[in-house]
């Protein structure tokens, strides 16, 4: 085995994640390789430093409020969905009413009515086209279930 192979064992040795046989083999290598022995010493020094470090535990009230805060997000997420659906429905309803008024209004010229109709048909085609494209790619997407 080369020193490079032993470098992988060095981490497992350092973290006590090594079997007896590998430990013996690694110690034998250390006895014959001053470079690896010196490197291990440096890593041990670093490990002593990091092992002595712990993260500050937040105050109890943080944990007491934690679940509540997650649920606030769930609630707000639902509220946004309901709000968005309602806003879309209202906009569609208002739009239809406005169009109805313009079309039935005798004072509005034919040209304006035709232009408005063309605008609505154009928007409808665009909407259907985008929706169909999205659906097509969603069905064909082989990676849609892959965890990202």
């Amino acid at each position, binding site marked *: 085995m080369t020193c490079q192979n032993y*470098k*992988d064992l*060095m*981490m*497992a040795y350092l*973290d006590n*994640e090594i079997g007896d046989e590998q430990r013996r083999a690694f110690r034998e290598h250390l006895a014959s390789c001053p470079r690896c022995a010196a490197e291990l010493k*440096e*890593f041990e020094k*670093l*490990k002593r*430093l*990091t*092992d*002595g*470090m*712990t*993260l*500050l*535990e*937040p105050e109890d009230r*943080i*944990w007491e409020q*934690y*679940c509540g*805060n*997650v*649920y606030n*997000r*769930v609630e707000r*997420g639902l509220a946004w969905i309901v709000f968005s659906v309602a806003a879309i429905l209202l906009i569609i309803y208002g739009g239809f009413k406005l169009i109805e008024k313009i079309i039935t209004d005798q004072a509005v010229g034919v040209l304006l009515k035709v232009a408005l109709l063309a605008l609505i048909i154009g928007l409808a085609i665009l909407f259907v086209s985008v929706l169909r494209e999205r659906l097509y790619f969603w069905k064909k997407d082989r990676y849609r*279930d892959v*965890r*990202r």
Partner: protein
Amino acid sequence: MGSFSNNETITIRGCSSSSKELFEAIVKRHMKDAYFIALGLVGNHEDALELSQEAFFRAYRNIKQLSSEGKFFPWFYQILRNLCFSHLRKMKIRHAGSLDEFEEEKIQIESHDTFDPGVLAERNEDTDRVWKAIGKLDDKHREVIILRHFRNLSYEEISKILFCNPGTVTSRLYYARKRLKEMLESEKGGR
């Protein structure tokens, strides 16, 4: 720790039916792990709290993606780490956008400035330096250092939540520690 040991299999079917109590139990069981891992990945209390709670919210929203035999924590961990890493990326872009091209060094300094040594339980000059150096590591190297040193996970547990083999964990740990050592030495030499 060991709260996401091999034996753990959350009854996900119950959770799919939006059982508030079950999800609350899952949050309570994993909130400390989630917070401390996020703290290790982003380096400060406010962001860690915000991102770990957001991760639970997204997990709740997408719980149906998890197979019934699936273990909750490895799946949840992917959500948490993606959130933390994308948060750090956004911060870097924001810094880069507000500075001109001649201030790249400043960007480097500011990106690990979010690693606040105030989150350490016991502080001295050495621990502050190590914490700052951990903040300068690449995401995937910082991640293994945090999981190993600050959450005391075994190589096998780390490989399970990272969806990689233990050999990859070993080599990432080697390069992470090597880089840490180099940074601390160069800092010492520069003083």
